[in-house]
């Protein structure tokens, strides 16, 4: 079962506002009228995704699972596949993924440890998942704050030793052509990260930047 995008956006927003989601604020963020929002909320609660607590809205367990799935799909889109035509072929060949855990393990070689960390990471992600992107997708001059790195222990520890720990601000200096490495400024030094490494580092875009 898939949920329509607008509904998902609503769920993400409610999660992002963390128990303080009031209709006024939600409508403002979504850019729709209060009426439309009311309809959307009604639909969501009918599906058992959200519930009302006094004047705020929060996610039900089902809603949380839905958000988690959405995030997983989003990160997967950003991380796992090449964009463009090749990516479409890959996705077509893979079909729709049912067993996500198995997919991460088999296709992306994540072990049980890193998988556990990954799920915790996407659950703890503050704000909407769409504010997260892979470091490899940032353009020169753009900034990001490291949210988490997806990969085995070896990789994330090497990254941490070089200063790329969660919460660290990075600025992209330049990238090499054809999916070459990316040079970033972090903690006052320049690091070159291979495309594969950079695409495993997920960053939050600081507010007020694009």
């Amino acid at each position, binding site marked *: 079962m898939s949920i329509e995008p607008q509904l998902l956006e609503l769920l993400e927003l409610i999660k992002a506002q963390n128990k303080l989601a009031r209709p006024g604020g939600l409508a403002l963020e979504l850019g729709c009228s209060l009426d439309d929002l009311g309809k959307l909320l009604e639909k969501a609660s009918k599906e058992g995704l959200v519930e009302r607590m006094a004047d705020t809205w929060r996610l039900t367990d089902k809603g949380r699972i839905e958000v988690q799935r959405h995030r997983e799909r989003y990160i997967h889109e950003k991380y796992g596949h090449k964009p463009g035509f090749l990516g479409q072929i890959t996705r077509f060949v893979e079909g729709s993924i049912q067993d996500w855990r198995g997919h991460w393990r088999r296709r992306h070689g994540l072990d049980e440890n890193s998988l556990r960390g990954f799920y915790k990471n996407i659950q703890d992600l503050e704000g909407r998942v769409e504010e997260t992107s892979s470091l490899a997708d940032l353009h020169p001059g753009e900034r990001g704050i490291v949210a988490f790195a997806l990969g085995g222990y070896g990789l994330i520890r090497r990254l941490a030793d070089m200063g790329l720990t969660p919460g660290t601000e990075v600025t992209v200096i330049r990238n090499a052509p054809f999916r070459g490495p990316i040079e970033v400024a972090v903690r006052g030094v320049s690091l*070159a990260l291979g495309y594969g490494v950079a695409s495993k580092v997920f960053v939050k875009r600081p507010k007020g930047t694009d």
Partner: protein
Amino acid sequence: METKRRITIALAGNANVGKSVIFNQLTGLDQVIGNWPGKTVERAEGTLHYHGYSIRILDLPGTYSLSAFSIEEIVARDYIAIERPDVIVNVVDASALERNLYFTIQLLELEAPVVMALNQVDFAAKKGIRVDNEKLSKALGIPVAPTVAITGIGIDELLSTIVKILEGKTELTPLKIRYGKEIEDRLEKLELKIREKLPELSAKYPARWIAVKLLDKDEDITAKVEGYQNGAEISALANAIAKEIERIHGEPSPIVIASERYSIASGMAEDVARIEAPPRLHLEERLDSITAHKILGYPILALVMTAMFATIFIVGDILVRTLENLFKNILIPATLYLLSTVLPSALVDLISKGFLSGIAAGVTIALPYIVPFYVILSILEDSGYLPRVAFLLDNPMHKIGLHGKASICLLLGYGCNVPACTGCRIMETQRERLLAGFVTVLIPCAARTVVILGLVGRYIGIPAALGLYAFDLLLVFTLGRVGFKALPGEPVGLIMEMPPYKMPSMKTVARKTWARTKDFVYIAFPLIIAGSVVLEALAVTGLIWSIADLMNPLIVGWLGLPSIAGIPIIFGILRKELTLILLADLAGTLNFSQVLTPVQMIVFSLVTMIYVPCIATIAALIREFKWKKALAISIIDILLALVIGGVAFRLLTYILG
């Protein structure tokens, strides 16, 4: 004279902070470069006499951390923890204080007596950063001596600081690294347990450090702990604690620990460093943006490489001629004359042709190209250009399962395969090193270039010679891919520091060249000389002709070369450019077009280019990868050369009619 006190100090710190420059400043030319016992990690050691002290100085490998990712890190920390040098000088780059303090924190955790050399304060000033060294010294509880290693500023003060500690005039009150409360409480518990259950291990390493390392999931320490009878219990406790920390923080415990170390480092750096002025690095920045540019970077790289090899060949050629004259006309005749007065003539022949011409070949042919190569290499290295090369070439290297740094090995290979093999140490894992070594020896070095240019380039044309180079690159990529698929293990991605551009110091370049040349002579010369003697003995006894006869089916039948080409190919194992000289000797002419057809020239060059890297390279391979792998690589290369040579002979004969 009073007896000298002997003490040992070790230099530790990140890569690219000027550690080896400080080492050179301290020791001068009095240094020994070798390997750490049983490990392919360079060990540089020197001695300094200062104020009645005989100070042994060790340059530990430059690392960013003291975990167990690389052999370098294990070597560095085991030396500090187990050998316990009297003082550790932590060389720190003042312009990148935060990242460097991360390492300092780990040194303090090892409970080592640390003195800080706050280096590159001049460069930091250029970046607009001023570090208050007294404040830093107070914060860390250790002496901090500001230095500018390249010009030698501050080295004396550093030494007197060290002596003050040795004489007990300065007390060290190193900062105790404290983590968050939820970690600290658990660490304490674990530390107590370690002291109680593992007294031997905690005599070797500080117990608290073992506790931290266990939470850091350090494989080396975990294995050491589990090697003891009570170890399993400790490691189970550590695992449980790590799980608790993971639950609290939502990150694996090693990441939590790294994060906390970094936040200590970052807080301290912010406290003691002031941004005083806007950076004045216009030239450096412009250079950086051009040389690492996504389009311009590549033609510049090609230009730099062309200039490098042109210089090597021009300078090398002049040196070769001068030295050859010296040997041929003065040194060899003089020695022979002296020898012939005491020894029988057959022995004199063996010595002159084998031993002396071996030395002569090494000195007159190898060194003239090697020395300029090392000079240019050191300049490129010290200026900071090589990481840009790795940056630009990372992508193609991934196709053969390596990353950008491997391109540096390949480039070195065009100069000489011997330093290129040693250079493979820059790769992180044993798998990457082997793969890089395997493809590097297929790169035509300067000596092979002499053959290709002298034969194919001169008699067929430069395009044909370039064609051979292109074919070689294709071969490197194909074989690299095969090796990449065949070797078990995951490829490692590129994570590399891009140090800012710097003006290389000629003094350092000279010292590096000297050390490397010495290293080359040590590896290569014994084998070149021994090989010359053996081959000369074969020639004197006439055995060489029987061997040539035995090889005839291969040389004539399969490769389609004239029978006399067999001997140069055997001798080529010594030094590849010898093949051309010998061919001229045996053919009795310098005009190769009289003895070889164009197809034969190409086949001869191909075989020379691919078959066993010369004996010095084999020695380097043995040193890096041990006997078995070196032998395997050599055999693969011989077979490859024969197959490709034979196929090329048939194909070219067919095409060219």
